């Protein structure tokens, strides 16, 4: 049988993701300093810190309310681009979880797809624009593919994680069309997109966490 994540489980994942983000401060800051304004890590890190503070409330919530809550916190605390994008992503994902008590394999794929759509819509952006989408999109495509091919969940999480990480790495070669890197003379070519890297941290952490539940 596959994994079944409760709202309490999702909170466990949030803790792990917060730690992962926290420990990569200098690296991510340097990435955003190179092509943007250098605040991406501190933005996203403070967002996760606030999520950790809200855990006692979130644990008792339905998945729907939990995701909405995460969205509101991210939106208001992070600010900047990534705040509103994650805010939109979580609000979009919440809709998928209406009346659900647990997240199963297909739900997780739906959640990630809903997040992707919300981000693309809010950011008026597509894959290839050198943004966090370039991590999330290949991960979602891969997830859907795994489900179509009816691969095992064990195989799936490994493949989705790999797609996310490779997607994030692929931003180095891209010219920026969204985000601050597009104001650089060289459009950020040769530099990784910080938002794609932190997105990869989250997907990676999530897939690893799911693996422990299998």
């Amino acid at each position, binding site marked *: 049988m596959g994994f079944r994540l409760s709202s309490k489980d999702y909170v466990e994942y949030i803790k792990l993701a917060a730690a992962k983000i926290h420990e990569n401060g200098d690296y991510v800051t340097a990435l955003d300093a190179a092509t943007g*304004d*250098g*605040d991406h890590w501190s933005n996203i890190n403070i967002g996760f810190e606030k999520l950790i503070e809200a855990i006692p409330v979130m644990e008792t919530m339905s998945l729907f309310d939990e995701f909405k809550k995460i969205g*509101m916190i991210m939106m*208001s605390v992070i600010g900047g681009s990534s705040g*509103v994008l994650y805010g*939109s992503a979580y609000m979009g994902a919440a809709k998928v979880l209406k009346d659900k008590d647990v997240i199963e394999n297909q739900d997780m794929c739906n959640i990630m797809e809903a997040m992707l759509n919300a981000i693309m819509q809010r950011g008026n952006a597509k894959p290839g624009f050198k943004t966090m989408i370039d991590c999330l999109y290949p991960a979602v495509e891969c997830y859907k593919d795994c489900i179509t091919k009816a691969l095992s969940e064990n195989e799936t999480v490994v493949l989705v994680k790999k797609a996310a990480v490779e997607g994030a790495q692929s931003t180095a070669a891209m010219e920026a069309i969204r985000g*601050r890197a597009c*104001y650089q*003379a060289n459009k950020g070519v040769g530099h990784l997109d910080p938002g794609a890297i932190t997105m990869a941290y989250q997907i990676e952490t999530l897939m690893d966490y799911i693996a422990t539940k299998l």
Partner: protein
Amino acid sequence: MKKIINHPNSVVTELLIGMAKAHPDLKYTDELEVISRKVKSKKVGIVSGGGSGHEPAHAGYVGKGMLDAAVAGNVFSSPSPDRIIKGIEEANSGEGVLLVIKNYSGDIMNFEMAKDMAEMDDIRVESVVVKDDVAVPDSTYSTGRRGIAGTVFVHKIAGAKAEAGANLDQVKAAAEKAIANIRSMGMAMNSCTLPAVGKPGFVLGENEIEIGMGIHGEPGVERTSVKTAAETADILLSKVLADYDYSGSEVAVLINGLGATPLMELYILNNEVEKILTEKNIKVYKTFVGNYMTSLDMSGCSVTLMKLDEELKELLDAPCDTPALKVL
């Protein structure tokens, strides 16, 4: 880093409180970092905002004849939608609200999300996007041009139109007209230091300047050697005039300091700008010289032109009374 601050995390809050204390017509909403007019009147509301670090923008333009509310994000970071919604609520008197957004994807996403959410609460919200910086190539595909100092003219025009009792569509149309006629170009001699970072965003050599940098410490399009005031005026205006046809027209001029450049230098630059414009048969109708849209402690300047017709002249001349811009 030498700054008159207490802690990098509290600069925005403390500066806005300090502003509200200095200007008793302003109301400060804490946590949400909104500055709005204490006395509301029945008219279209104008809301602007963006990252902090551009003082007096945006809170300094709240007052009669300009903005109804300004929403502040962290330094150089867009305010979040919940803050913007508060700004919209403060500005709304039932006649709808116009958002003046600068063209940064962060600002656009946050303001549009706020717009969506306010509309769910049945507030009519329209928005315009300022993109006056000719340093960045225009393009419908990419995010395109940034909004910089020309935004101040948009505040003035939209604010005057709203104060005159126009409806939301008319106010939006006036703002759009202003935007279509505004172009700016900037130059930095030293980068700025974010309070939370503690060191400059880019470093220029003893004799280097940066042409076409942004107002958030983004590097520019060209690094070159120190220029005279006459050369600076020529470089900046050439870009502006190549982008939009101002010949034979009347213009408003904004000689803007970026925060650390003394007025002496801005006035010297104005002298050169006026010479070139006169030579090119462009008539200066009104000139503003000062620190209107800054970039923390950056030294440098930008030059903005707005082509005027009768309506824009009238709106530009209309009285306004804000901390940072007063027209009598």
